């Protein structure tokens, strides 16, 4: 392997690693605050990429129908709760928000999809469509479970993955798409031509990670999320509503997923099931971090990206097999670190 090839592979690895890092961080965040293993994170990535591709072609993406449906379902659940006896105004407010926001987004999208407002506007639309999916999925699928065990909600997460995967196929069809890069061209760095898109991906990921660190470290709302993750009872005692915290992390997870989708669309061909595999790779990084540590998750993601990139050079056919098999040494390493009998949930 020449220096050039090695460097190009590193570039690929870092680019993918940056994307896996965003996913892994979102997964760690959702898990630590809600104890939900959010398998459908990957589908959010898919929806984002494919919605962007539709908008680029001037058509309103099929995902709109999904958020309208999710919104109406969530509103229905709130209305049902209201009728069942919880006559609080917060219920009615939630009902209005769940019902109306998706409808407004849909109206906006239909009004402007063909108008050719340009790439940036399309990105705004994608964010408007995809980000609310996080809290909507939480409200419709996970909230009704109450205090379910991790495994119970994991099976629900799998079922939601099925639903979203199928809806993705229905909404976007089986064809793969690739959007034009955000910025075209290549720039030489140490004699290696680095694509502008790769730089954009890494830069955006770094900015997003810094923003996340600032949010968690500096703002009261971010600290409240960390507090919920560390100690739920303590968080309740200072007045943090677990449910509100959950809604917030799902919103952030929706944002992370949407961002990944926008970043990944120009560098790989995205099919309706591509996001799932990206999401799972994010999971491997998150497991590497014990579903708990943000820095380890980011590190794991970058290492995974590099590993994937080099293994695609040495054994391209077996790339995915090798990457997913990585879980075994990782788990072995983790299990050697904990020696006592761990009690599972009932």
């Amino acid at each position: 392997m020449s220096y050039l090839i090695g460097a190009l592979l590193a570039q690929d690895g870092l680019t993918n690693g940056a994307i896996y890092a965003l996913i892994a961080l979102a997964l760690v965040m959702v898990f630590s605050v809600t104890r939900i293993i959010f398998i459908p994170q990957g589908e959010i990535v898919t929806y984002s990429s494919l919605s962007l591709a539709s908008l680029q072609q001037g058509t309103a993406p099929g995902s709109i129908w999904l958020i309208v449906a999710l919104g109406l379902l969530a509103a229905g659940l709130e209305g049902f709760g209201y009728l069942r006896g919880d006559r609080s105004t917060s219920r009615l407010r939630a009902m209005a928000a769940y019902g109306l926001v998706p409808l407004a987004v849909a109206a906006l999208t239909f009004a402007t999809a063909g108008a050719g407002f340009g790439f940036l506007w399309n990105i705004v639309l994608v964010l408007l469509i995809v980000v609310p999916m996080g809290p909507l999925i939480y409200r419709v699928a996970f909230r009704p479970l109450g205090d379910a065990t991790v495994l119970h909600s994991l099976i629900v997460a799998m079922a939601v993955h099925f639903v979203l995967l199928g809806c993705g196929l229905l909404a976007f069809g089986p064809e793969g798409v690739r959007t034009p890069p955000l910025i075209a061209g290549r720039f030489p760095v140490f004699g290696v031509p680095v694509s502008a898109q790769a730089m954009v991906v890494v830069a955006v990921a770094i900015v997003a990670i810094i923003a996340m660190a600032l949010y968690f470290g500096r703002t009261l709302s971010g600290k409240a999320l960390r507090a919920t993750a560390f100690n739920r009872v303590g968080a309740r005692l200072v007045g943090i509503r677990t449910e509100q915290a959950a809604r917030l992390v799902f919103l952030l997870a929706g944002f992370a997923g949407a961002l990944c989708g926008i970043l990944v669309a120009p560098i790989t061909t995205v099919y309706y099931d591509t996001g799932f595999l990206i999401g799972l790779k994010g999971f491997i990084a998150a497991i590497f971090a014990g579903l708990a540590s943000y820095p380890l998750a980011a590190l794991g993601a970058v290492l995974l990206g590099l590993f994937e990139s080099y293994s695609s050079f040495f054994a391209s056919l077996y790339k995915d097999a090798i990457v997913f098999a990585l879980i075994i040494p990782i788990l072995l390493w983790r299990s050697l670190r904990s020696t006592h009998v761990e009690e599972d949930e009932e």
Partner: protein
Amino acid sequence: MSTRRIALLVFTAIVLVLPAVLSAYGLTLMNFIGLAAIVVVGLVLLTGIGGLTSFGQASFVGVGAYTTAWLTTAAGLSPVLALPVALFAGAFFALVIGAVTLRLSGHYLPLSTIAWSLSLYFLVGNVAALGGHDGIPAVPPISLFGWEPSGPAYTWLIVAAVALSLLTVANVLASRDGRAVRCLRGRRVMLEAFGVDTARLRLVIFVHAAVLAALTGWLYAHLIQFVNATPFGLNASIEYLFMTVIGGSAHLFGAVIGAGLMTLLRDGLQRLAPELVGSGGATEIVMLGLVMVVLLQTAPRGVMPWLLRLLPPRGRPWMDLDRARAIAPFSSRPKPERGTELLTVAGVTKRFGGLIAVNDVSFDLKAGEILGLIGPNGAGKSTLFNLLTGISPATAGTISFAGERIERMASRKIARLGVARSFQHVLLRSDMSALENVAVGAHLRSTRGYLSALLRLDRREEERLLAEAMRQLDRVGLAHLAHEPAGSLALGQQRILEIARALAADPALLLLDEPAAGLRYREKQELAALLSKLGEEGVAVLVVEHDMNFVMNLVDRLVVISFGQKISEGAPTHVQNDVAVQEAYLGVAA
């Protein structure tokens, strides 16, 4: 004959007649229900009962199918001879993967199953010797001395395989290891305290489930006569798990119901709305996912509990007190002479980081003696109890029991030495009967293994175990509740049940963690009488207790700890009048 048995017979009769009358299409459906049911039977054992969630069962089906396909095509082996190899391959893969991943708890395990099964999937699709993405065509049909089962005969073969699978799991569940499997979920600490090697047990049921999946793989390969990777992917695994949940993951028969419902549901969907299904199966998985979400939100226990409610309760179980008395008991552990030193705690210290929870505590306990361990909240009693029972190792000092050093021994090894315990937070399996719960305590008194249970060679030993449990229930006065689910007993009775379970282990030392909490006055008196009698029989008893009336009237001697240190020791009246004890409990007098 009980109604349940009649229902089962009618069901069996229908299943046996069906292949003879069904169309080719109906047979195909039935074949697929049966093939799935075998995998799901394994999942009920593994996930529903053992609590180990696997999203990777389809890979084991694949291992079985590819093994037989390769052996019967490339190597030209007969399918019948390939069967044991296929099953062995499934077991081998499970053993290797399980050895690495099963040590992990809770959610790591299912996540890892997703990852390694995907890895296998991608691997198989690219190995040229296995046909790559095209797979292996022209797998020969099964042939047994010239007879080639096809049509209804093949369906009967599958039905037989389903029945056999059900039987293996049912046999296991009705055995000593089976009771332990049923307690794996959330009760591992308790199992270890009664000598069960839970890590090994988890591996064994993982292998069992994998072998059943490989059996499906073998049947599938020779039915379809073509093998490629697609049907063994992650989606298939998820669907197997869904079937388990739909049927009712805690019920063996739910496997058949779940497999049947799901297969028929999909077929119905394909027939009712073929134009929808045209889009690459999208509608199908959407519907499936929706059904699952709604089901898990509203009826996470699946269909089976609902079906069982239609049937009358189970008939009278076969063990009762009269029978138990007629069965020869296990030989009892030779008890040390009353008054010989049994447990010696010398300078034991436990640190957690900078915190010293137990500080240089020493005391001893003689055979036949009842010792109370008391102290205010947070004094370190629970920590000390954990050191004695091997839940956590001591930082310094020694603990000897009957001449063996146990301060760093694992709890299941301590159990072998003759130490049994009860738990402060009752650790019973509430859906198991009182009798079965107590029988868990007698685990070490039999040595019959998993395989002999599977082949039903353990019946006599099993009878003795249950008889032993029955006698212990009688001893604590709960024999009349033997067949009630433990969860339906009052809390006080559950505490007594914990003690019966400990007694079933035939201990030389009994460690009781707050046995009187939640008991009524009468029950406390009975418990005290029972413990005194045990003392007379030579059993040493160490009891941690808050109820001072109870403990003062019961024990021979008290050890009082506060801030991790022993502050007083002696007879109850001495301790009650000890100013240091009064200050520890009530604060310094003015």
